[in-house]
């Protein structure tokens, strides 16, 4: 678990995009460095990227509209890409999606590279698409993303409500890779965050070896669906 040595670590500044193939048996700990971070993320089976994170399958297998420790991220092929093994936040948003250029320009105003150098205004959609292209993936590979550290609640009428202050400085969430998972991660602000200023926050990343989950693993045993999801994942590697 979290007492194994860190293999490497890195801080992703606000508004940036990062990618990495998180190997089966390693874990990625994301820490909200300053409070109020948002980490949008999409996940692919690195060996066959047409197998990718599936938001509806993740939600309906576990009857959830939020993510926290004990839940897992499902691919569209019935396998577990990552497990949420540790979480000090309690709620991560799988619904709200990502910002795009139009939203960022309308909400925060325009700020170009020519005028602002590397403080130019970035959006999550373009960040995802550029990073996907580095791995040979394109717009047809873009799927619904998770927003770690953010919370969006849904009212009885279906209305979506962004809850500010969900994550504090030092809050963390840890994902254990159950496959070799291409992670595309972006630190732009949540698209439903009403804050009027462009102020995306940094996220600290640390990777460590944790080994495969045992038979008493809490994510495996949190519900019968996940038990079957782990069986199908283990069959893939058998």
């Amino acid at each position, binding site marked *: 678990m979290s007492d194994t040595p860190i293999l490497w670590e890195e801080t992703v500044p606000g508004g940036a995009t990062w990618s990495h193939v998180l190997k089966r048996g390693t874990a990625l700990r994301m820490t909200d460095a300053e409070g109020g971070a948002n980490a949008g993320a999409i996940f692919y089976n690195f060996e066959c990227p047409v197998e990718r994170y599936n938001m509806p399958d993740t939600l309906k297998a576990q009857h959830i509209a939020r993510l926290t420790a004990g839940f897992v991220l499902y691919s569209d092929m019935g396998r577990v890409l990552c497990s949420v093994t540790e979480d000090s936040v309690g709620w991560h948003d799988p619904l709200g999606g990502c910002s795009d250029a139009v939203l960022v320009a309308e909400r925060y105003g325009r700020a170009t590279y020519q005028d602002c150098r590397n403080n130019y205004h970035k959006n999550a959609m373009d960040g995802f698409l550029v990073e996907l292209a580095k791995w040979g993936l*394109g717009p*047809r590979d873009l799927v619904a993303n998770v927003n770690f550290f953010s919370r969006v609640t849904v*009212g009885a009428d279906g209305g979506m409500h962004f809850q500010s202050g969900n994550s504090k400085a030092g809050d963390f969430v840890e994902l254990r890779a159950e496959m070799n998972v291409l992670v595309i991660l972006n630190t732009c602000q949540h698209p439903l965050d009403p804050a009027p200023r462009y102020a995306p926050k940094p996220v600290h990343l640390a990777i460590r070896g944790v080994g495969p989950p045992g038979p008493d693993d809490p994510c495996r045993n949190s519900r019968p669906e996940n038990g079957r999801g782990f069986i199908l994942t283990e069959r893939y590697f058998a």
Partner: protein
Amino acid sequence: MTGSTTKRDLASAIYNEVIPAGEPWVFEIKKGQTLRLVDLHGNQAVDTLFYNAHDYGDRYSAQDTIRRQKNIYLSTGSKLISTRGTVLLTITDDTCGRHDTLGGACANESNMVRYSIDKRFMHACRSSFLKGLLDWGRGMEKRDITSNINFFMNVPVTPEGRLTFEDGISEPGKYVELRAEIDVLCAISNCPQLNNPCNAYNPTPVQVLIWDAD
């Protein structure tokens, strides 16, 4: 039909067909045309994907659609938004009142997780989508199957962040109408799911009608 508030002349529809239970349907809807989907027998999930007919990389996005309207349910007035922010269609009439876009489409693999590993060989929506899109050709493949709409399906989210599958609120004859704002490709899987109440455990045919612009 009960529940119908028909304002359109059925005889003037340029297209009027029935999709049998468990079958795919792929068809182009031109800008300005109106598509009506009729739940002939009640509580039949109609899993539906839309694409910009001139660029299949620009396709319906569940997250962009619910984010723009700040509401997870689709009904009259909902604009269906693409990954590039294009308004693909607008829901112009709806006698059902609520449609889902979070529950996704069933698959052999998700049925194995949700119900039992031996459910692998039951017919499922994503196999229908693949059959429909492969027959349509033009390079369509599995990665074009993204988060879909489930017309006539009721999937509430609670304030505590739970996703629930409730009995349908649709009835025989209820329908939804959509106006195409650009030329779109529509792919439907008339859901064959037998493991949960989304089709009242009895998948049934649905009717598709298209009218030219008024």
